[in-house]
């Protein structure tokens, strides 16, 4: 097999290039690198309405991503949505009275949870629950209220 050396090198390069492309897609294009940062601690937050929040939505503090939404479930007793947040283990100094709100990036962007630090001296630990929460703003409700108040003004002028 004298002729086959160059051929084998060619095939080897081809397979290597294909695998490298897959690797690049996995690491650079997809979320593999962010999935793997799994270890951290989880805290829960209850919301009246989570809007379009999804599992794996970002959790930010001061605009910096500190974790991700690990799970969203519905509490049958209180009729609230329970979001489980996975916070990176280096961010272990969140005060106990930290509040969580659901915001939207831009007008049409995705929803995320913003954390606002409180002033208490104790820190949130694994399994704790955030008590102060603010639900997602549902655009239809806001527009409805706006129209309602406009209609009210209109009557006032007459």
């Amino acid at each position: 097999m004298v002729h086959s050396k160059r051929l084998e090198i060619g095939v080897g390069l081809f397979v290597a290039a294909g695998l490298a492309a897959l690797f690049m897609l996995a690491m650079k294009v997809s979320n593999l690198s962010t999935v793997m940062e799994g270890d951290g601690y989880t805290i829960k937050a209850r919301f009246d309405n989570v809007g379009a929040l999804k599992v794996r939505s970002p959790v930010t503090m001061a605009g910096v991503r500190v974790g991700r939404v690990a799970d969203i479930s519905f509490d049958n007793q209180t009729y609230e949505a329970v979001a489980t947040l996975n916070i990176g283990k280096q961010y272990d100094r969140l005060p106990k009275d930290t509040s969580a709100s659901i915001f939207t990036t831009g007008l049409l962007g995705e929803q995320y949870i913003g954390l606002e630090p409180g002033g208490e001296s104790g820190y949130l630990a694994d399994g704790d629950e955030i008590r102060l929460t603010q639900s997602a703003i549902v655009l239809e409700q806001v527009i409805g209220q706006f129209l309602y108040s406009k209609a009210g003004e209109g009557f006032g002028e007459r």
Partner: protein
Amino acid sequence: MTAVLQQLGRRGLRFFQRLGRAHLFLWHLILALSPLTSRFHLVVVQMASVGVRSVLIIVVSGVFVGMVLGLQGYNTLGDFGAEQSLGVVVALSLVRELGPVVTALLFAGRAGSALTAEIGLMKATEQLDGMEMMAVDPIERVVAPRFVAGVISLPLLAAVFSAVGVLGAYFVGVGLLGVDAGAFWSQMQSKVDVLEDLGNGVIKSLVFGLVVSWIAVFEGYDCVPTSAGVSDATTRTVVHSALAILGLDFVLTALMFN
């Protein structure tokens, strides 16, 4: 009237006969895979002609498809002030759809037709019969290595296509049109899922690889052993592969991303 019905019946019967033959052939092919493991160099030789020599057309098409996606996406997303999402749009459309599908179509034209013509000519010049005379199973020796090489090559080519396409879109979007590079990559990374998008894309291209290689080697092996027969078989390979790819793509997409 009866002649028309007769014709229709004959065509129908011939179609099902062919379909049955194709599946028996596939079964024979699968049985021929285990002896192939001890002669893997046959596959390597075929991968050189099927895979390596398709790289150039895949890379060039990938770059241009990515660049066009970047340009079109930029214009459309710009209307909503969402140019930052360009990376997501390009990466998702490439990884989920265009990568597997366009690669498979190009592969059918570039490598599938060559496989059919090669095997068909071997049949027309009675090389396959000669092998059988020497107690060499032509499916084991000639067809199976080509089939396996196609199945292995297509997912690799599709990955190259998608990766190069993303780079092409990066060049146009970030380099020429001024989208923020950080937003381009970070939004892409947060929206493209490894298993959901990338994994399903690889599964798709694997299925396409199986189907295209199967059609190509079957058409070659089953062709009428004349020069007109070989040319017919080559045409059929490209047409049937394209139809199978597009039809299967819909089915797979409906199963995967509903």
